[in-house]
C-alpha cells in the first residue's frame, strides 16, 4: 500500500492491497466462526440437555472462557504449531489456516455458552410437548437447534464480532506477513506503530463499517426468516 495515502483514497481508488487485506480478514473470521459453530453448537446443546456429574463446573468454565485474552490463545496455538511443537509437522504456522484455527478456539466458548443458554430456555418451553411426542434425545437436539435458529444466528454474529475485532491471536500465529497474513486489525497495528495514524484510523473506520455491514445483512436475513417462519 502506498505510504501516506489516505484510507478513503485507497477505498475509492480500488487499491488491490486494501482489498486483499479486507478479503483475508473476512475469510479468516468467517471461516473461524463456521468452524467454531461446527463444534460449539452441538456442544452447547449437549450441555443444555444432558445432566452429568460436573456439568455446573463445565458451564462455569465455558462462560469464563468467553473472556479468554486473545494473546493467550495466540501464544498457546503458536507453541502448538511451531516446528518445535507437537503439531509442527502440519506446517501451518504463519499461514491463514493457523489464524482460522486460533480464532475458532477463541470463539468456541462464546458460541457454546450462548447456545447452551438459548437451548436451555427453549427446552423449558418445549419439554412437555417433545416428551409427549416421544421424541428421541438425539432428535431433540436437532429440533431445538433448528427452532432456535434465529437466536443462534445472533450468537454466531457475536462470535464473528469477537473474531473480526481481535488482533492478538492473528498477529502471533499469522505473523502479519504482507500480502499473506495481514488482516485489517494487524494492518492497523502496524500503521499505528509506523506513525501513520491517519491511515490507521481510516482502516479502522473501514473495519467498523464492514462489521456493521455484516451485522446488518444478518439482521435482515433474520427478519426475513422470522416473517416467513413465524
Amino acid at each position, binding site marked *: 500500500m502506498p505510504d501516506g495515502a489516505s484510507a478513503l483514497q485507497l477505498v475509492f481508488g480500488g487499491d488491490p492491497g486494501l482489498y486483499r487485506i479486507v478479503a483475508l480478514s473476512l475469510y479468516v473470521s468467517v471461516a473461524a466462526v463456521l468452524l467454531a459453530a461446527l463444534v460449539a453448537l452441538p456442544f452447547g446443546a449437549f450441555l443444555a440437555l444432558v445432566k452429568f456429574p460436573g456439568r455446573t463446573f463445565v458451564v462455569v468454565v465455558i462462560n469464563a472462557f468467553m473472556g479468554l485474552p486473545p494473546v493467550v490463545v495466540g501464544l498457546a496455538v503458536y507453541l502448538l504449531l511451531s516446528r518445535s511443537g507437537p503439531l509442527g509437522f502440519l506446517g501451518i504456522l504463519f499461514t491463514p489456516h493457523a489464524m482460522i484455527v486460533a480464532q475458532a478456539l477463541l470463539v468456541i466458548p462464546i458460541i457454546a455458552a450462548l447456545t447452551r443458554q438459548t437451548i436451555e430456555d427453549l427446552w423449558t*418451553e418445549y419439554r412437555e*410437548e417433545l416428551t409427549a*411426542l416421544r421424541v428421541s434425545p438425539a432428535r431433540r437436539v436437532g429440533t431445538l437447534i433448528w427452532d432456535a435458529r434465529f437466536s443462534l444466528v445472533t450468537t454466531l454474529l457475536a462470535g464473528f464480532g469477537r473474531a473480526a475485532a481481535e488482533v492478538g491471536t492473528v498477529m502471533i500465529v499469522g505473523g502479519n506477513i504482507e500480502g499473506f497474513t495481514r488482516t485489517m486489525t494487524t494492518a492497523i497495528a502496524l500503521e499505528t506503530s509506523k506513525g501513520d495514524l491517519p491511515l490507521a484510523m481510516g482502516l479502522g473506520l473501514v473495519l467498523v463499517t464492514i462489521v456493521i455491514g455484516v451485522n446488518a445483512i444478518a439482521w435482515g436475513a433474520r427478519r426475513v426468516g422470522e416473517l416467513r417462519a*413465524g
Partner: protein
Amino acid sequence: MMRAPITDLPLAFENASLRIGSVDILAGLNLEIPAGAPTILLGPNGSGKSTLLRLAMNLVRPTAGRITWGRRNHPDERLAMVFQRPVMLRRTAAANVAYALGRRDERRVTELLDRVGLSPLAARPARRLSGGEQQRLALARALARDPEILFLDEPTASLDPAATKAVEDIIANVAASGVKIVMATHELGQARRLAGDIVFLARGRLVERAVAATFFNAPKTAEAAAFLRGDLVI
C-alpha cells in the same frame, strides 16, 4: 394361534400419589379407566386433573403407588396428549404434523390436516395460526401417533365458543372412531356434551366416579352436588 394384541387399557392407578415438597398434589388415587366412551376428568382448578393426565401419559412418575397400562408397568406408546397451550414448532402446519409422524408421508399428513379442517392452512407457519387453529393442529399431531388413548388437558380453556365447538366436534369424531378419550375440563357444559363417564376430583383426591347420566342427575357426594350447583368447592 393369534396373540392377543397389546393394549394400554385398562389404565389403572393403584394407590398412586404425587407429592412435591410437603404437598400432596394427588393422594391415594385408586382408579381404573376402561376402553369405551370418553372419560372426563372434572373438578375445580388445582384439583389434580392435569397431574393425573401427566401420570397417565408417563410424563412423570408417582412418588407412591403405581400405574399400569393394560396390566403392564410400561405403556406400549400408543398414547398421545394435547396440552392447554400447545407448543408450535417453528415451521409450517404441515411440517408440524410431519414431525409428529416421524416419517415422510405426504398423503397421511394431508389426511390428518383434513381431519381437523386445517388443509387450507397447511403451508402457513404454525406460530401464525389462531389459538383455535393451533389447538386443532395439536390434535392433528397427536392423531399422527395413531394413539389408542388420547389425553387432553383443558384443550378449549383459552378458546372462543366457535373455536371450542370446532375442537369438540373433532374430539367427538375421534372418540367415535374408536380412540379412548381421557379429557380434563373444569367446564360443566363441555363435560355434559362429551362424557361417557365422569371422574370428579377435588383437592387431589378422587371424590366421585360415575356414568355421566348418574353423575349429573344424582350425584352421590356433597362436593359433587355443590360443584354441579355452581358453588365453589374449596
